[in-house]
């Protein structure tokens, strides 16, 4: 693991000491090389690597680590345009925030000890908050940053207390020994509250439907790299945490998870429906994220092998797709300076290649077979159907509405008559095309070999 963490830490001096014209190139190259290292982890025997006391890798963490490492070069590609007018130290500061976030994320996903995981989980909040409030676009970003920070903090403080209590009662919170080192949690008031304390932090982060208020704000007000990292990785922190913590909480999960399963089913349908009525493109993508994550929450709370596999695949697929959608929305925004969907219509006539990326992004968003999005949703829906036949009504309805709003997003931005005021925008740059390709290629390649991310032996 050190071969990934140390180079990421050293990216900071690399970037600060590089010349201004080499800054972007250096950071891109470094981050791409680091992501190649993470690829090696996916192909280990047994898919686990336990060479250290503090950091390890596992079929559950390696796809997420891969995603995190892959996303950093993409974020750097995406921010080049809007940081154009800033001075060099500002740009370097921005990339430092991204790298700092990356370090904490890599360490979070590979931590062995739950307390270390918690500390790094909280650490990821700081650079994200700075990115949203300092480099966001509108005055509402202060509000968005406050919502983001306080929702997550309020949710995770009980988690700290619960984890410390567990540490004192179990002796060790090491993930590798957790399956044999737990006590059974029987139904009692204390244990209920402990369960809630553990899970609420991750529910807020996912986000669960009732606690999702921070997400549309934060996603919309964040700059592109902020949106990408939020949608792709930070939401998955919640689900990763849930999957790590639930082995400690048996058999209470079967009883306590019921209201949250209901909330996530209902939230899926509700947030998808809100997407149909959105006029702001980024807001639409943010609500679609909530909807997909509700499916992941459902999968994790049911706790069957198929559903956990489905959750994993969904996480990776949604990460890549959502990030791609945000990049596309950003390319629109940079040209027209407005996020409203009605100002950029009929773009297929002007930019056919961009229309291809939009089409692929929207098709993967609506879980078109045989993409990995569909694999994840299929496994989850099957597992939840076994859990209770009635859930098929919600999940089926959600798939329908997801298809509706994804196609609505596509047709309103690409098809139809061209708006007059976009007729002199510049076509997609090579950099942006590369960005879209680098999002799409993993999705398409994983479609061919989904067992790498399937987490079959956690």
């Amino acid at each position, binding site marked *: 693991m050190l071969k990934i963490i140390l180079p990421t830490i050293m990216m900071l001096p690399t970037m600060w000491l590089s010349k201004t014209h080499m800054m972007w190139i250096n950071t891109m190259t470094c981050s791409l090389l680091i992501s190649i290292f993470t690829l090696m982890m996916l192909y280990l025997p047994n898919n686990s690597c336990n060479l250290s006391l503090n950091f390890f890798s596992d079929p559950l963490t390696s796809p997420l680590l891969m995603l995190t490492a892959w996303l950093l070069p993409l974020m750097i590609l995406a921010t080049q345009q809007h940081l154009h007018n800033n001075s060099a130290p500002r740009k370097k500061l921005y990339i430092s925030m991204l790298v700092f976030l990356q370090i904490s994320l890599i360490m979070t996903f590979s931590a062995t000890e739950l307390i270390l995981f918690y500390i790094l989980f909280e650490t990821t909040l700081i650079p994200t908050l700075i990115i949203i409030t300092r480099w966001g676009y509108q005055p509402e970003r202060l509000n968005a940053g406050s919502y983001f920070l306080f929702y997550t903090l309020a949710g995770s403080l009980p988690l700290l207390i619960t984890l410390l209590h567990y540490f004192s009662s179990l002796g060790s919170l090491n993930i590798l020994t957790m399956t044999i080192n737990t006590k059974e949690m029987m139904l009692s008031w204390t244990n209920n509250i402990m369960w809630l304390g553990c899970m609420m932090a991750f529910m807020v982060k996912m986000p669960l439907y009732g606690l999702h208020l921070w997400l549309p704000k934060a996603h919309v007000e964040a700059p592109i790299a902020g949106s990408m990292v939020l949608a792709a990785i930070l939401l998955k922190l919640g689900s990763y945490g849930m999957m790590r913590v639930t082995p400690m909480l048996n058999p209470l999960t079967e009883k306590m998870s019921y209201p949250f399963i209901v909330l996530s089913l209902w939230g899926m349908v509700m947030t998808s429906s809100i997407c149909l009525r959105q006029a702001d493109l980024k807001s639409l993508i943010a609500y679609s994220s909530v909807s997909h994550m509700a499916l992941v929450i459902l999968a994790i709370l049911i706790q069957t092998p198929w559903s956990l596999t489905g959750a994993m695949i969904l996480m990776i697929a949604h990460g890549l797709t959502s990030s791609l959608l945000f990049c596309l929305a950003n390319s629109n925004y940079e040209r027209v300076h*407005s996020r*409203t969907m009605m100002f950029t219509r009929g773009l297929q006539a002007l930019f056919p290649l961009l229309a291809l990326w939009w089409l692929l992004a929207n098709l993967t968003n609506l879980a078109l077979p045989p993409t990995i999005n569909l694999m994840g949703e299929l496994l989850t829906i099957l597992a939840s159907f076994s859990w209770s036949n009635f859930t098929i009504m919600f999940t089926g309805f959600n798939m329908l509405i997801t298809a509706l709003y994804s196609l609505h997003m596509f047709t309103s931005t690409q098809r139809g008559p061209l708006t007059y005021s976009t007729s002199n925008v510049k076509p997609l740059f090579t950099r942006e095309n590369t960005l879209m390709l680098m999002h799409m290629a993993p999705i398409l390649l994983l479609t061919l070999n989904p067992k790498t991310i399937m987490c079959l032996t956690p």
Partner: protein
Amino acid sequence: MLPRVLSLGVRRGPLTRRPGTLRGGFSLDWEEKLSEIKKKIQSVLPGTSLHPLYDSSHLPPDHSDVVIVGGGVLGLSVAYWLKKLEKQRGALRVLVVERDLTYSQASSALSLGGIHQQFSLPENIHLSLFSASFLRNINEHLAVVDAPPLDLQFNPLGYLWLASEKDAAAMENNVKVQRQEGAKVCLMSPDQLRNKFPWINTEGVALASYGMEDEGWFDPWCLLQGLRRKVQSMGVLFCQGEVTRESELVKMDNSVEYQPVECALVINAAGAWSAQIAALAGIGKGPPDTLQGTKLPVEPRKRYVYVWHCPQGPGLESPLVADTSGTYFRREGLGSNYLGGRSPTEEEEPDPENLEVDHDFFQDKVWPHLAQRVPAFETLKVQNAWAGYYDYNTFDQNGVVGPHPLVVNMFFATGFSGHGLQQAPGVGRAVAEMILEGRFQTINLDSFLFSRFYLGEKIQEDNII
């Protein structure tokens, strides 16, 4: 950051001492101090204003989807229709920038307030008809919860255009077109004129056209305030400022503070000053005789309006009479007061530098014609006079509506040369449709686009006063 703080030191901040208050003492305006302190605290709390050091709530937002330059009746009408026709509520963020919120020089406020459908161009007729039906139902269109209804004081007394022998044929043609498009206009011979309006001297009049419905005059200030109230309730942001430099952003000057506003579309509804805004966007910067070099041919022209008192005057049933000489007058109120004036010829054009009234113009150029047409006006007494600007389109005296062919995110709604107020609702709707749908839907204003200046296609309107 630093220059902004310095400039703040120059202007009066909320905590400077005012004369008459003792240090630490209880001053009489305790309420005002308290609200100022509250405002200051609120601006420091996170989540509200942008700058933690001082209150910036009077500044416009950083981003807006549409910025409308000019808060007169045309700008507000565009704002109203944009918000009315947007597909989802709150989809568009609109900002109206107005330099002078007292409207002291705005053409909308100083206008005579007349509306008529007696134009020669079908588009103009349609626009006025649309506006007339809008004004008829104004309390349905511009209703705001808990606010009193608007009283437009619409006097439906019609317009009476007089034509001499040489203009009679053209007037007859025009009336035919007007009736085809749905305006209710009738032609009158001199005898009929004398019958209906005994106070007219029909010497030199061969034909007259009289509008019988949807024509008259109303209170433009009421329309302005009604639109403003409604538009604010729909969520349009207002800002007092002046648009100065522009690249793709709009910067505004407000005392010495400026705030760049990033926007997707700019609508030029600046009336008499539209040419400056267009020049900021780079319209007209190029070799002459090219599309880039075509400037926006709108310039301010000063027009005088005189108010006089004449007890023996025409009485309650007098329409707005437009004489063969270009002089016009209408009744004002119920106390035998009349408003009127005359458009000067090209040679007599007054200097549009300021809004000073030239009373000699009335003595020499207006009164003789008035007295000739209405003998009772020989004994009038001028009470008052004011001057206002026409946003005069020197090309063909008709409005410019729609996008610019090259600067694709600037839309025009200006240059109406004196009949902007009466066409404002229709034009606002047309611009909103152009933005939201991509083409004109209700009234086809394709002939009013900017490209006609480059192509040289004049759409001349005959009945302009």
